[in-house]
């Protein structure tokens, strides 16, 4: 039963992260939301690994990839934000609409 519960935990983390990403205006908060979503993925991966395929290392590879993705996402996110901020003092997504249709 714990398998499903941990998955629910993962879904919960993912959903809260999603809510944060969708509702927050500040770029930093959105990135925090995304970090939470990836955290959810990591929990799910560990759960799958632990309860479904412990013999194979694929679950762990997914976690490694997720962790790397988290790191890359944060690095690139802050790089873009820095460039954008330096260009126009923009710190919320609402102000950065240039790519509008």
């Amino acid at each position, binding site marked *: 039963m714990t398998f499903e519960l941990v998955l629910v935990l993962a879904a919960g983390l993912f959903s809260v992260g999603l809510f944060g990403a969708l509702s927050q205006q500040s770029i930093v908060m959105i990135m925090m939301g995304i970090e939470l979503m990836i955290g959810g993925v990591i929990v799910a991966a560990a759960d799958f690994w632990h309860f479904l395929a412990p013999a194979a290392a694929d679950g762990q590879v997914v976690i490694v990839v997720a962790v790397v993705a988290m790191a890359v996402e944060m690095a690139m996110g802050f*790089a873009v934000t820095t460039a954008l901020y330096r260009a126009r003092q923009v710190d919320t997504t609402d102000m950065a609409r240039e790519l509008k249709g």
Partner: protein
Amino acid sequence: MEAVSLWGLGVVALACAVAVFACDSMARATFALLGSLVCVGGVVFVLGLPYLGVVTVLMMVMEMVVMAVFMVAYMMNPAGLMPMSMLHNKRGALGISAAVFASLTGAVFLVDWPQRRGSPPRDTTFQVGKALMGGQMLTMVVLGFVLLATMVAATVLALHRGRYDRLGDDLDRCPARDPAGGGVGR
């Protein structure tokens, strides 16, 4: 023992996750996120992946500290002293995430998961290491290149000065007038 710790960590993680978007102070939000992710590391640790768990904690701590730095740099109200709602489309987001959560939990309980196949090896760290260096070498290589590309791209994007500004218009100024200090021979 394992179930109790999992429950504990799960609840704390969710609480911290909610706290991230509930509290006004951005510092508190950041460290709530840190707390949540440390619990995630704990869950992974408890699920029999000690190395990945501790590495996750290690990485999350460094990330959150760096995020705190950026948060102070780019947030209008990092300390949350003037509470203002930086939210928009709250109802929509809530709706969507609730829907997602419902569908995921639905999936979790409806899908008949296959039985566990095989048993965990004695040393899971060795398993992942062997896999990354063996069967999943391609993934490792790709990750390596992605990280390298990220380092270069992030640096280029973040730097205010170009790579050759310091060498002057004719690229021949010596010594180079570099805004950032340091560098051999200067």
